[in-house]
């Protein structure tokens, strides 16, 4: 802490004089290091000595307090220390609550100082003007690993400004958790939304309703947009034009209203992000949509501090998002996107850190309990096949339940704003909970599907117009 100032000056000076040179060197360093990481172990020493000459000073990272505390412990205690030693950089990590990220991000921009690497948990398209275009390292890593996944690309690139505003290091697939014991009584499984509609009444009558939120929180947002997608309804099209006021949206609204009326209770309007986890873990819900945090919570330590609940865990299955009349397509649960501020003081180290992390993502994938999936699927060597193998090794019952995650991540996970890009307008629609609002109003009978869709259409069009005049979409 005490000696940051002089270092800052050094990096600033070099920054002013030869920023381009520095970037070039960082790229080279990354390249060489990439060889080192993927190649023979003996090469490491030589490579790091080279890298050590290039990088120096401190690297300050800010990211969320991970759902898996053990991941943070490993990341803070082992990973960054090793990396720092190899690269002669002192790395520090600060964690904040996921809800605090936007405020702190805005504050750092206003202050024009803060961390070198800042991880958002949704594509931070509105910060484009304050962050480095990461095209160089994206290309660097793409050269090594092949193209990044579509969901990652659409969450980090702005086609209008042709800029990579972020580094999509990971995304989190969003499966359905369901209880085979309760569902057995309905004679179905949650394979399609129609199955949910048919089984809803029975499940509610046995005291174990379906739990899909329609509240002001992340899980609800993502579940409702996924439901829309399955019905072929979208917020925007590929050209970032608002297309929400459609027959497909109205169909999705009707489906949800039906499911709610038959098989859910008012609790879903009151939920915050933790509520569906709690209700599921308490044995109340027969189905919930969430990242694997539910399944992992049931397994107890080391994932969480609460004791394991094998009685529920053993009958909990993981499925992809139910199939709709048009398709089966869910959303990412969260999208980890690092940015490097233009005012960051150690850009070279920040870039290399990202590159190195991506080139060998396997420990991140494993330590997060298969929560983080890499933005470049080959970041886990061998890609989805290898991830499938790793998930198959998980010993929790029912055995092999996590293997489906790989399929979900590969086939059924879209970015927010699909089929378009995750842009600033989509982000605003998301942050204002306009989609859950639309569904909740219909489910509570306060609005007809048609009215709700057109009301949402008006509000969303205004948001898009606002960002269009800012030349961001």
């Amino acid at each position, binding site marked *: 802490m005490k000696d940051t100032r002089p270092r800052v000056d050094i990096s600033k000076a070099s920054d002013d004089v030869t920023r381009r040179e520095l970037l070039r060197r960082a790229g080279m360093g990354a390249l060489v290091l990439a060889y080192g990481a993927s190649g023979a172990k003996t090469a490491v020493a030589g490579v790091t000595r080279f890298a050590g000459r290039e990088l120096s000073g401190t690297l300050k990272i800010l990211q969320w307090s991970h759902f898996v505390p053990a991941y943070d412990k490993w990341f803070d205690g082992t990973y960054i220390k090793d990396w720092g030693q190899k690269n002669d950089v002192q790395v520090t990590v600060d964690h904040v609550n996921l809800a605090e990220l936007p405020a702190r991000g805005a504050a750092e921009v206003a202050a024009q100082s803060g961390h070198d690497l800042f991880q958002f948990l949704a594509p931070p398209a509105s*910060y484009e*003007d*304050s962050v480095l275009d990461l095209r160089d390292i994206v290309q660097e890593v793409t050269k090594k690993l092949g193209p990044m996944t579509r969901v990652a690309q659409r969450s980090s690139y702005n086609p209008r400004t042709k800029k990579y505003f972020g580094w999509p290091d990971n995304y989190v697939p969003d499966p359905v958790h369901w209880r085979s014991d309760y569902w057995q009584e309905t004679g179905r499984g949650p394979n399609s939304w129609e199955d949910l509609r048919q089984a809803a009444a029975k499940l509610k009558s046995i005291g174990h309703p379906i739990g899909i939120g329609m509240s002001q929180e992340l899980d609800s947002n993502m579940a409702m947009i996924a439901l829309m997608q399955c019905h072929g309804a979208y917020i925007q099209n590929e050209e970032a034009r608002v297309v929400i006021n459609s027959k497909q949206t109205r169909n999705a609204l009707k489906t949800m209203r039906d499911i709610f009326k038959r098989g859910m209770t008012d609790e879903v309007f*009151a939920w915050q992000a933790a509520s569906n986890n709690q209700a599921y873990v308490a044995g109340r819900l027969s189905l919930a949509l969430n990242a694997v945090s539910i399944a992992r919570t049931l397994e107890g330590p080391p994932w969480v501090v609460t004791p394991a609940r094998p009685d529920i865990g053993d009958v909990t299955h993981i499925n992809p998002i139910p199939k709709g009349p048009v398709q089966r397509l869910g959303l990412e649960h969260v999208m980890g996107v690092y940015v490097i501020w233009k005012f960051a003081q150690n850009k070279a180290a920040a870039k290399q850190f990202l590159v190195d992390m991506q080139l060998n993502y396997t420990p991140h994938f494993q330590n997060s309990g298969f929560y983080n999936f890499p933005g470049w699927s080959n970041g886990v060597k061998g890609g989805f096949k290898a991830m499938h193998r790793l998930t198959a090794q998980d010993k929790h019952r029912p055995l092999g339940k996590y293997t489906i995650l790989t399929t979900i991540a590969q086939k059924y996970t879209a970015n927010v704003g699909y089929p378009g890009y995750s842009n600033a307008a989509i982000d605003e629609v998301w942050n*204002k909970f306009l989609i859950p609002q639309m569904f909740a109003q219909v489910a509570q009978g306060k609005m007809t599907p048609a009215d709700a869709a057109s009301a949402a259409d008006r509000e969303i069009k205004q948001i898009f117009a606002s960002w269009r*005049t800012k030349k961001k979409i």
Partner: protein
Amino acid sequence: MSVAVEAPRRRRDVLEERSVLAPVLIAPAVIFIAVLVAGPLLLAIYLSLTDATAGSLHGHWVGLDNYREAWNSPIFRRALRNTILFTVISQIVVLVSAGLLAHALLKSFRGKWLLRFFILLPWATPIALGTIGFLWIFDSLFGVFNWTLVHDVLPGSHAFYPYKAVNWLLARPALPDWLEISPIDPNNPPQWLGDSTLAMAAIIAVHAWRIIPFATVIFLAGLASMPPEIDDAAKVDGATGFRKFLYVTLPLQLPIATVALLFGIVFTATDMTVVFILTHGGPFNSTQMLTTWAFDTGITSGNLGLGAAISLYLLPILAIVAILMLRFARRVEVS
């Protein structure tokens, strides 16, 4: 005689001192506040007139576009209405409660210290954490209110379910229709944070919970600072009870009470912690306040200019209310 001659001169001395002393005493506070608040405030006003984003504080000048755009959103208008409703109702609750409490606490009675400790507890709690506590109390599944409502609370065989009593009350025809309260279904208990009316009530209750102790302390301090001579004088004049309160206590307390009320209003209208944590504006954005809506727009979504405009909407209204109230307090005091 000599005293009469000396008095004007002394007064003149004091007068001379005043014109120097007053600015000297005030200056540090004014300078501090000006640097720390006035500057940023001007910047916020400037931002509201531009299309700045969280990612770039330098926007283009757009005039009053942001104010117009904000107004066009139905959610904004609801937020404006909510803010006013929330502020007025919670302040009424707070004033009445704190007034009663302060008067009651002036008397001495056994156990007063302990009871006062209980009353002070909310004020000693970081509000962000206190609200998380309420999140747990109102929890959709484990909430203690709902548990109490729908379970037999009398041990033994006399089954007494509180919700049945509530439903009996609700079935009285005297209740106005607009209340929109349906009977409690034990299998689908009321969702305190999931129904727009109940959620508003919950927010108001939590805010009142938080401010009552603070207002009580201010009133108590004000009452305690009343010189006992005045009490005696009132007794001599035969003013007691309510008359005494109206003609003696109230006028004397008015400056302090006004300040307490004003700060209560401002505190309620400009602080977002309770709403943000408790409902985040839900369900379906029906409990958004200007503060949370501005935050979701300007910070979380990065539409900074618009967010600034939303948050500044209330400023002129508050300023007018404040100036009127301060003038009023002043006049009452002078007369």
